[in-house]
């Protein structure tokens, strides 16, 4: 083992490219983490511009800004880009930066593969965004790409399919890298049950990725062959079944939503104890709860399909299984609250985002429970209620966790403190505008407004107007975030090695910023 570390040291110091080649050739986990995070942010802005175009069209009844065919392309690409381009790469960026630092490893297990898994992403992104220029435009079948509508699309659909293949390959390589790193490269003494919770959640997430990304690849490949080679997987006239696409898609899709939230749970579980100055209340029950959520995620997929006409037994099974997820999720929320209880709490920006996360994610959890009840779901399926629900868990959930994590580790990464006052303003703007944009969508959904429509009946006008105003406020607030991050990278108060009084973990034993190659000799964990 020691020989291996020595070897890494030799080559690393001999080879240190600069300029653009540093980023293209890099095998350093910190560089690659940075690349992932910037890529995710660019895609977040791209998907965000699409979201704002959608909300601008929905500002008032009638068609004003885009025509229906363009509208459908925008909602589809907004979904695909935010899921595969923004949220997932952002979390992989965190894994790259933090997993080696938190387990005391010198780098990721497979540094060259790491480089390759990142540089596949811009290729996929160009294919995906470039499909707007294809004849007929980008795919407009919704991010769920349901057959047979996806069969009708133009070549933009094929570009999206190839982009998904590439993104899937990147995710699988990233997941293999993370699992191998965590299982083999922990510092001596760091047993599995001593790992920081962020590392645990990523270990479980990586297994989910390996399990379901091939399933998605299979589904879109079948779509591709149906489109061009008359395979009729999803065509009843040829002996296929359109609903089979949905079963396969959601067998991927439900674990996928946990892929997008579990690392967020991990980040929040690092932040809360730090600013409560008190250890996490139930470490092992948090680990078990995460694992239970991951396992349950494989047996609940058809709750996305309560209106396709399953038999009663099927509906009941998926309803019960889905409701069961509330138990481990509840355990997590109770644990966070118990950690806060009788702590010594301060409210720096990471803590604000973590608390905002718990508060709003739990609301998304409750509406998730409402959606789990089959008869109620039949009323609100494919309405704005569902749109509100998943934006509470993915924006106020995953995205807030990402923001919290950025503010939490930015002093470590850059060596500078960010502007605390601006950070807090960013939080409050995001928090308020998020709720303005999405809370009213619950009412729209209950009153029966379907999702994915470019124009709506007059009784929905007021709430849509409010929602659009909130969306623009939320979108513009993110430019402040960009400013804060750039300002922090370029300078600011020098960050201490451990800038947060209550923080605990190996990453805080390093300097801020950490050396380009850290933990060349592994630390020993007691």
């Amino acid at each position, binding site marked *: 083992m020691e020989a291996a570390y020595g070897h890494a040291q030799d080559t690393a110091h001999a080879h240190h490219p600069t300029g653009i080649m540093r980023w293209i050739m890099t095998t350093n986990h910190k560089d690659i983490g940075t690349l992932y995070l910037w890529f995710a942010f660019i895609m977040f802005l791209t998907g965000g511009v699409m979201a704002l175009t959608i909300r601008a069209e929905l500002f008032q009844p009638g068609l004003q800004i885009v025509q229906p065919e363009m509208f459908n392309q925008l909602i589809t690409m907004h979904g695909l880009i935010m899921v595969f381009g923004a949220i997932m790469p952002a979390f992989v960026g965190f894994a790259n930066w933090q997993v080696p630092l938190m387990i005391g490893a010198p780098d990721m297990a497979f540094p060259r593969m790491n480089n390759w898994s990142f540089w596949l992403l811009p290729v996929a992104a160009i294919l995906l965004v470039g499909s707007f220029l294809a004849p007929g435009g980008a795919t407009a079948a919704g991010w769920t790409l349901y057959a047979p509508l996806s069969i009708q699309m133009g070549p933009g659909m094929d570009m999206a399919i190839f982009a998904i293949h590439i993104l899937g390959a990147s995710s699988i390589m990233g997941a293999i890298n993370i699992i191998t790193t965590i299982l083999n490269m922990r510092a001596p003494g760091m047993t599995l049950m001593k790992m920081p919770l962020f590392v645990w959640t990523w270990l479980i997430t990586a297994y989910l990725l390996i399990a379901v990304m091939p399933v998605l690849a299979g589904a879109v490949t079948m779509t591709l062959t149906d489109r061009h080679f008359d395979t009729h997987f999803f065509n009843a006239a040829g002996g296929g079944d359109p609903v089979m696409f949905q079963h396969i898609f959601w067998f991927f899709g439900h674990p996928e939503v946990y892929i997008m939230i579990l690392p967020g749970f991990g980040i929040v579980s690092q932040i809360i104890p730090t600013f409560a100055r008190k250890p996490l209340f*139930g470490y092992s029950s948090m680990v078990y709860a995460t694992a239970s959520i991951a396992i349950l995620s494989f047996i609940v997929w058809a709750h996305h399909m309560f209106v396709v*006409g399953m038999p009663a037994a099927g509906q009941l099974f998926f309803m019960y299984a889905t*409701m069961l997820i509330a138990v481990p999720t509840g355990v997590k929320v109770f644990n966070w609250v*118990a950690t806060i209880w*009788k702590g010594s709490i301060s409210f720096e920006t990471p803590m604000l985002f973590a608390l905002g996360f718990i508060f709003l994610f739990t609301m998304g959890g409750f509406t998730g429970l409402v959606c789990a*009840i089959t*008869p109620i779901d039949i009323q609100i399926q494919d309405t704005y209620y569902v749109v509100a629900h998943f934006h509470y868990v993915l924006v106020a959930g995953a995205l807030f966790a990402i923001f919290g994590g950025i503010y939490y580790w930015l002093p470590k990464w850059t060596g500078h403190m960010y502007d605390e006052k601006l950070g807090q303003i960013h939080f409050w703007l995001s928090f308020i505008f998020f709720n303005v944009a999405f809370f009213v969508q619950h009412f729209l959904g209950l009153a029966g407004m379907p999702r994915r429509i470019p124009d709506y009946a007059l009784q929905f006008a007021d709430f849509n107007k409010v929602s659009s105003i909130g969306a623009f406020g939320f979108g513009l607030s993110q430019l402040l975030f960009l400013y804060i991050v750039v300002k922090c990278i370029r300078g600011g108060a020098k960050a201490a090695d451990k800038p947060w009084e209550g923080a605990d973990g190996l990453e805080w034993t390093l300097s801020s910023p950490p050396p380009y190659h850290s933990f060349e000799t592994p630390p020993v964990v007691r």
Partner: protein
Amino acid sequence: MIRRTAQTLASLFLCFAAGLVHAQSRYNLQPPQTIIAREIYTLHTIILLICVVIFIVVFGAMFYALWRHRKSVGHKAEQFHENTTVEVIWTIIPFLILVFMAWPATKTVLAMKDTSNSDMTVKATGYQWKWRYDYLDEDISFYSTLSTPREQIDNIAPKGEHYLLEVDNPLVVPVGKKVRILTTANDVIHSWSVPAFGVKQDAIPGFVRDTWFKVDNPGTYRGQCSELCGKDHGFMPIVVEALPEAQYKEWVAQQTAKKSQATASAAAEAGKTYSMQELMAQGEKVYSKTCVACHQANGQGLPPTFPALAGGKIATGPIAGHIDIVTNGSKKNPVMVAWKNQLSDLEIAGVITYERNSFGNKLGDMVQPKDIAAARK
């Protein structure tokens, strides 16, 4: 004992819910009009209230801690963690609450799925982008298309009261009868949904699914297609008119009479030879209703899925090919359906003539209804 408490609680909630039912609220589900919709409404009220109570308890504790245990007021952190008793309790209590929620939900699921012993059956078929209704017990079938004028959508004319929620031919049903709806689709997946009935059922091409409702009160009830089905997904509403039984019978008689009239006039049309002017007038009417959504008013289409007719290969090519694609549909591009199922010979003849002599196409040829009759496969 638990059961009795549950029942008492449920009936308490019911009273509360009943108070809300009759008011049209902007913040809640639409006023229910069927037994299933009422059960869903109550279920939603119960579950929402339970969630609100849990929310207040959990976040009451959190905000209390955030306030009292702040560092800025000098609170010192205690270092306790792990307590098996507490952890077991907060696992079991939520589980019991879930069982309490699942019980009434299960009963409603079973009731929703029970489509047996229906009084009548209507098949609803989703098309891009309209609905077709076939009354299986009567000889009635018709298409139901959005009737909101294009000018309202394009903000040229002021929007009417039922903007986007109005159709030319609503589905007509009797009140107090169990109506079974079979859903299927012709092209992609659609979803037949009427919120006031608590009904939403996907319409899947190649498969038949079913659902049911029994309307309490006469009235007009509105819903929308609820599964993304392409360009005009937002423009294919569902309107159901529930009539008292006697009026419904009258309506059925009217429809049957109309149908036999239509058959008679179709027979008359079949042999007749029409003039260019008549065909063009007929064609323009059909085009502006049926074809315009995809091929556009100027005939430019939206390529590549919806090709242009102006100067198009088929619209300016041999007449037989044009007749075939309109009558029997396109194999290569299934969006172009076989219009023989939806249009009469005269209508197809008219629209083909119109397409060959509009948008700058000047072929000057004509198609007669008998040509279409011959082309029907």
